[in-house]
């Protein structure tokens, strides 16, 4: 629907749309977008996210500068009162996430009564927000960056703890039993050619351990660990045997360990095949837990490479659901010294194990294909990291 070109009158106080927007969406309440995006925010002024839109919905992706963690915020198009995406059905751009959150939160953090209209105009290359609450109207135009076949964020490597990533020749970390380096190298290579797809990489290795935990409990655990000064890494233990799920960290002056014992109503649907302990950078884990204050349940998974996947289910007071996922690569190095309970040499197949079968095993998952309210559909094609398609609908089906 073409519109008249503006006459260029600078005295006009209203913005005149010069051409049909590539995308228009309306949300009755801005709360869901605001809360979900806060779940992937790191609070830094220069944090950018890649926004991907397609018929299924919208997805904001943030990749940590270390390239060791990636967060995804998903909103299904079904949550929108208006969802109008032109062109070839998908759209992608990069935007400053911190500025976006500042715009959304202009009238405070309670946005249940704030109506939100989003739009994107190709010619202006701006992501526009229009918020209405009562008689107060806020309009924001945020400049976007073109993001086609480019990595999320600068490809900077933190040489201190991911040194193996830089030097193929300088393999000084001995035997790396989980292929982390390979994963990271492929991610980095992939990152140059296309957006690094942590989701796809996570799925490329078998998921060994999984459980659903109450977000509130996980948040308490993260808070405990967060208070430990000088703790650079956190060890995550997932096992079919006691202690089943444990988070621990060593600080400068003290250490801390949080157990989630089996039988506690705090977690359900635990399916752990193998005793695994992996360490993760504490700062990245805290990022991955940003959504915990808003979430109801968190699906925790660890794959064969030791990559940790956290999928948080966020539910608004009106029942609207959205998801925040985080994938965190484990630190290179052997974490078995942190694993006091593990009896080396024994075959761990006790406890709640089920025959592992990626395609068939049923079990609780946060977004079942039958649940039409969520943003995920059953995957219809293998996720290909080099694909530029938006919204890789990869939900974990077992």
């Amino acid at each position, binding site marked *: 629907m073409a519109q008249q070109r503006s006459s260029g009158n600078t005295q006009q106080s209203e913005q005149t749309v010069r051409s049909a927007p590539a995308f228009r969406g309306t949300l009755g309440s801005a709360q869901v977008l605001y809360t979900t995006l806060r779940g992937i925010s790191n609070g830094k002024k220069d944090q950018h996210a890649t926004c991907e839109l397609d018929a299924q919905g919208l997805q904001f992706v943030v990749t940590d500068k270390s390239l060791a963690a990636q967060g995804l915020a998903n909103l299904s198009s079904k949550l929108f009162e208006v969802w109008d995406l032109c062109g070839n059905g998908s759209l992608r751009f990069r935007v400053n996430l911190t500025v976006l959150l500042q*715009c959304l939160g*202009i*009238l*405070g953090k309670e946005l249940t009564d704030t109506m939100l209209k989003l739009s994107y105009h190709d010619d202006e290359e701006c992501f526009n927000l229009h918020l209405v609450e009562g*008689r*107060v109207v*806020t*309009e*924001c135009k945020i400049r976007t960056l073109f993001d086609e076949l480019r990595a999320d964020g600068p490809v900077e490597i933190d040489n201190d703890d991911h040194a193996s990533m830089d030097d193929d020749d300088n393999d000084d970390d001995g035997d790396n039993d989980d292929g982390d380096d390979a994963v990271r190298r492929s991610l980095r290579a992939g990152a140059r050619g296309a957006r690094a797809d942590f989701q796809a990489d996570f799925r490329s290795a078998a998921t060994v351990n999984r459980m659903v935990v109450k977000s509130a409990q996980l948040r308490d655990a993260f808070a405990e660990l967060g208070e430990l000064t000088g703790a650079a890494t956190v060890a995550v233990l997932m096992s079919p045997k006691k202690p089943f799920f444990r988070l621990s960290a060593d600080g400068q002056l003290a250490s801390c360990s949080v157990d989630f014992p089996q039988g506690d109503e705090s977690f359900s649907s635990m399916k752990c095949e193998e005793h695994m302990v992996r360490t993760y950078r504490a700062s990245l884990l805290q990022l991955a837990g940003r959504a915990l204050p808003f979430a109801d349940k968190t699906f925790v998974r660890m794959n064969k490479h030791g990559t940790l996947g956290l999928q948080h289910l966020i539910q608004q007071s009106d029942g609207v659901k959205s998801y925040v996922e985080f994938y965190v690569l484990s630190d290179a190095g052997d974490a078995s010294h942190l694993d006091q309970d593990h009896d080396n040499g024994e075959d761990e197949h006790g406890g709640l194990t089920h025959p592992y079968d990626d395609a068939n095993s049923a079990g609780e998952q946060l977004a079942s294909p039958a649940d039409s309210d969520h943003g995920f559909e059953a995957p219809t094609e293998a996720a290909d990291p080099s694909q530029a398609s938006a919204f890789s609908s990869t939900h974990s089906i077992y």
Partner: protein
Amino acid sequence: MRFKATLDDTGLRTFLATAQCFSKVCDECALHMSKESFQFRKVADAESDAMLFATLGMDAFTSYDIASKADSTISVLIKVGNLLRAFKSAEQSDKVVFKLTKRQGVPCFSIIAETLSGLSVTQDAPISTFLTVEGLYAYREPNLRKPDISLYSPDPKHVRMVLERMKLLDKFVTLTLTCKGTMQLQVATEIAVMRTKFQGLDSPVEGSGVGKASARLNVTEFIRAMQFGVVSEYDKVIFCIVSKEAMIIYVTFEDDMGTLTYYLPCPWEDDGV
């Protein structure tokens, strides 16, 4: 010279709120007491160009006695913090007496209050200097032409919240008022333009006047000025713009006890939006 006044609890609240508003924008201010009113005055200083004037009428006091050779007026400079501290200790009292005294040769305000437990507490707030008529002249309200536009402000809480968010984007915000009853705040950087419009605002002035007027303001100063909303019980709040000169925030306290007037200079050229 002598000065002695008493305040009941509502008068005290207003007095305290006024002192708090001043404490947010300056360290030291002028007090000008006359038979008709008790005034606080802050003018442009090294830290900020903003000006603030408060006038408390006789309704704020239960008794009021003043005498001096200068036509029964007394003007002083005082550290607001001292005054605030002295009055805060009287916060719970029903009745407060405050008067001009001398302690060990130092002139000060003595604030005498009765606590809930029956104790009588006296706090002293030393006076920095007495101002002569010439000295007081430096602390006068600016002489501006009639505002181009005046509107009743939206909820100060909302305005403050929007300004706090905008402050994160840029140092300056453009305020635009229109005779159609809209108030717009806009901040623009290379990355984003954010504009918030409040609609349906009434005008205290009859007649159309100019269509609209804009002012480019320092966000931090604006937020500081809006702090009155946190500390006081206000009745009416009016925003005015005198183009290329100043933006004025005019606040009336409840029960006609007094008024507060902020002047935020905005000399820059602004085309408005």
